[in-house]
């Protein structure tokens, strides 16, 4: 199959703000589109996900693949048609950028763990339990299906603590810190 890199819509193109419709027709044309969508995602530098509306197709299809990132739990290449979040928990802030919003990144709060139901590209229903970076990628792409960009969910860069490692040498043991 010959695949094509599609043109990415760039905000403030208002088409990015519209809600996409569920896929109802599953045919060769959809398969070809999914292949092109994935090709477009892989052509973008560092792109780990893409949603159909980013290329001007307003149907509920996303492709996510975070397997290129080291040390991150992932399901590999994922094609999700008509995805729905069935369960969600936890809240974590992370930095996001978007092929449709060049030269800007911002902090966004997302569910840390989600359960997603979707059809795969072979129209088989699938359920994915995912967390962290991969869950963030899926939520970012699913937002596109509802006309939302990460710009709609920015939290202040000031005052966000997301600690992982603490460098503290106890010097005055017994003293309150």
């Amino acid at each position: 199959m010959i695949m094509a890199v599609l043109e990415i819509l760039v905000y403030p193109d208002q088409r990015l703000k519209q809600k996409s419709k569920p896929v109802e027709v599953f045919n060769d044309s959809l398969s070809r589109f999914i292949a092109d969508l994935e090709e477009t995602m892989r052509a973008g530098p560092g792109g780990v996900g893409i949603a159909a509306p980013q290329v001007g197709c307003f149907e509920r299809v996303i492709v996510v693949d975070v397997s290129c990132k080291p040390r991150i739990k992932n399901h590999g290449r994922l094609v999700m048609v008509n995805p729905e979040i069935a369960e969600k928990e936890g809240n974590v802030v992370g930095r996001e950028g978007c092929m449709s919003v060049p030269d800007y990144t911002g902090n966004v709060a997302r569910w840390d763990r989600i359960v997603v139901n979707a059809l795969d590209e072979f129209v088989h229903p699938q359920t994915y339990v995912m967390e962290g970076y991969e869950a963030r990628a899926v939520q970012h792409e699913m937002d596109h299906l509802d006309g939302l960009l990460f710009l709609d969910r920015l939290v202040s860069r000031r005052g966000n603590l997301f600690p992982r490692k603490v460098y503290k040498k106890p010097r005055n043991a017994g003293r309150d810190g």
Partner: protein
Amino acid sequence: MKNWFMLTLVGKDRAGIVAKISAVLYQENCNLGEASMTRLGGNFTIMLMIQFDGLMRDLDRILQPVCDSLTLHYHVNPIEGELHHHREPDVRISVHGADKAGIVADVTRALASAGLDILNLESDVAGTSENPLYIMNIEGVAVKGITALNDALQALDCGSDVEVHLSEIDILRG
């Protein structure tokens, strides 16, 4: 328009400063670029990129009356106005704890020697006057890698009442 200037304004804070200043600049055909406004110790501060066809003295003529009326100090510098080339940070360092002299110097010296290029730094003094709490957030590029910064912070001793957190910023591009 080709000339870029950096306007710095400092003064007593009050509601409506940004609206008044930006209205005057708009009326005088200035284009605004990037800006950073914050209150520091209750004072109004802003740094604002202005694109303007005229000269510094023309900006003086525009700014003097409105700044006088708002009792603001202003300062203008000609700058290179490079847009659309943001550098993205790959590491974030948060410092919080007792407010004491030397925290910024100690932490930033250690980080600089380990290759941190700071892109953004913000700090607040919170808590109470009896028990001040210092909070600083830094974002930057780990030029020599994250491990070098980790090592530098591990060797740093800020005391038991100050915590330093480092977290990688792994930007998700979707």
